[in-house]
């Protein structure tokens, strides 16, 4: 058992699965010799060789497309997009091919690939390095979107994603790559996909979030607890397909819902959750559903970055607004 950061947990999971399953390969820009610009794949090429850990040209469409081809023929590629901001040339491959492989071949072929990408802002990076557009992939049928928020879940969910027979977009919240350490056992145990994780139980208001925002949301819950407000915090973990049942059950208990995501507000994943709860849990709601999100602008640079990202203050204000009714 070791105390590892989220990025180290990713490396641990990759190494474990590559050891266990010969068909798992890693490819991407700078993943081999360099070990990845965030060191996610550090040591893997030295251990498993350049045939299994491949440095690719600077060509995202090719990285995704080659992965799809290899996956359809029985390999398990885990490809990396260096930043989510570079994923867009690969979207054609993912939507038009990866997500449709089963459908197109009537089940004869499937596409067990994982596409990893660091996502989200908060590290004072240049433009294109702070994207949070998980809603794009959540909208596409045939593609699973998974976002871990702790080292343990990064390990367990990545293993589950690699073992899943269909394409997974695995978005790693880079802001919390090294923010906290956690005891994670390298036992190869996958954690369940397609379910939410309740991080904190409470009775007064339900807070739903994912990625790096779980950090701020838990802080908001702690702050509110000191004022006597009991919050339930749920980590979505799998963005799509959405586990609405867990959220509905929580709303049945609390009657109040706040959704927190750093992605922009318009048509973000929060809207889907709000619609689902309005559809199936309307009679449990005591107040309108609140969304605390990034603004509908381009993600700003350095100086305005933390204005854009939902703060603990904004989350607390939204939760209190639901209680005012």
């Amino acid at each position, binding site marked *: 058992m070791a105390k590892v950061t989220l990025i180290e947990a990713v490396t641990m999971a990759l190494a474990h699965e590559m050891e266990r399953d010969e068909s798992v390969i890693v490819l991407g820009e700078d993943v081999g010799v360099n070990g*990845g610009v965030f060191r996610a794949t550090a040591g893997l090429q030295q251990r498993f060789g350049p045939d299994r850990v491949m440095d690719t040209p600077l060509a995202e469409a090719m990285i995704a497309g080659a992965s799809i081809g290899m996956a359809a023929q029985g390999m398990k590629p885990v490809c990396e997009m260096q930043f989510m901001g570079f994923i867009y040339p690969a979207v054609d491959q993912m939507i038009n091919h990866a997500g449709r492989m089963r459908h197109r071949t009537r089940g004869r072929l499937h596409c067990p690939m994982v596409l990893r990408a660091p996502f989200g802002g908060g590290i*004072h990076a240049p433009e294109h390095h702070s994207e949070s557009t998980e809603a794009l992939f959540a909208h596409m049928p045939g593609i699973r979107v998974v976002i871990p928020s702790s080292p*343990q*879940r990064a390990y367990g969910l990545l293993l589950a994603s690699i073992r899943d027979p269909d394409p997974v977009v695995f978005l790693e919240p880079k*802001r919390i790559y090294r*923010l906290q*350490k956690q005891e994670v056992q390298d036992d190869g145990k996958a954690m*369940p996909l397609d379910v939410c994780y*309740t991080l904190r139980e409470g009775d007064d208001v339900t807070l739903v979030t994912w990625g790096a925002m779980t950090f701020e949301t838990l802080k908001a819950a702690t702050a509110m607890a000191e004022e006597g407000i009991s919050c339930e915090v*749920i980590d979505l973990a799998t963005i799509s397909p959405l586990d609405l049942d867990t959220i509905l059950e929580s709303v049945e208990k609390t009657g109040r819902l706040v959704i927190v995501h750093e992605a922009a507000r318009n048509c973000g994943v929060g809207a889907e959750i709000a619609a689902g709860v309005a559809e199936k849990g309307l009679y449990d709601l005591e107040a309108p559903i609140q969304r605390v999100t990034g603004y509908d602008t381009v993600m700003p640079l350095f100086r305005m970055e933390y204005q854009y990202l939902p703060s603990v203050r904004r989350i607390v204000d939204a939760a209190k607004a639901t209680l005012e009714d």
Partner: protein
Amino acid sequence: MKTFNLPDLGEGLPEAEIVTWHVQEGDEVVLDQPMLSVETAKAVVEVPSPFSGRVAKLYAGEGDIVETGKPLIDIDTGSGGSAATAAPASADQSPAEASAADSGTVVGSMPVSDEELIETAVAGGKRRRTAGRVKAAPAVRALAKKRGIDLADVPPTGRGDRVTREDVENFRPRPAVRKRTPVQLPPGEPVRLRGPRRAMAQSMGLSRDEVCACTIFDDADIHGWMPGQDITTRLLRAIVAGCQAEPALNGFYDGAAMTRQLESRVDIAIAVDTPDGLIVPVIRRVEQKSAEELRDDLDSIKTKTRARTVAPEEMKDFTFTLSNFGMMAGRYATPVVVPPTIAILGAGGVRHDVVPVLGGIETHRRIPLSLSFDHRCATGGEACRFLAGVIGDLQRTS
């Protein structure tokens, strides 16, 4: 004196070649003024001055190659003295220098900490818990709030135990109850009542607050019954006979308005015991039905109760109540009148009693009866006439 090191100009490039200096030693520079052009593997980049001041020293000349992080220029900002250190003063430094471990080659500033994450995470799935909160549409909640009505007091009739708009509009708050200190439960895990239990608690509370109940006990001697008679069906028929003998117990009473409304139809609510609590499905127009039809209705109730498909409409709008409780134990009772109805008949366990007959002693099968009625609107005489009618019909052989 500030020393400025060559910053990471993009994605971990290790070095850059100086193309042109735009300033010389001794020049005054202002913040952000272009200082020099460097060429990296990717492009020619302008580097702006991070300080205002006087250029004190250039560490390399045009054409020289400088490693990322090595000193480039000294600027005297006149801010007084500490000796120039190699510590990075610009915000453009890459974190690779900052922390001890090799944490990558990304431009930016990632927060790093050794703080340990202690968390509990429960995977979602099918956890079924009873929530016990009132269900109502937002518009209905708003209406109740406007009227100052607590939704928890309103008996729900909507699907899924929902309080509907109609429920709120028809709700008549019960008369003010005298203030009493609430009962304090000892520490434990109280579970809020919901569904039939909740409805029963509300209904019985309402009865206690409003009804002035009186109960008359008697027995029906059924030793003369032909074989094959069904007790519940006979009881239903007997109630109809009682209503015909004395109509004053079949109907409704409104204590607030002090109005009485007697009915000719006899719709009897049957108390049924279920694992979820007491429910009272209604058999309609008993006065018009044959014994077979009543038997069918009773069977249908039994099936629906087991399947939990008794709808709220099937439990509303009855004129009389029957509680046949004797199957397990109990002889007589003080059954509770369900407002707004006027009376309720309780039948205890059929038993063999020793009875005197013409100077001798026999054992006869008898049904113990307990008739509760609301004495605000029915007299003892009316109640006894009713009961006599019930007993008379029950004692018929078939």
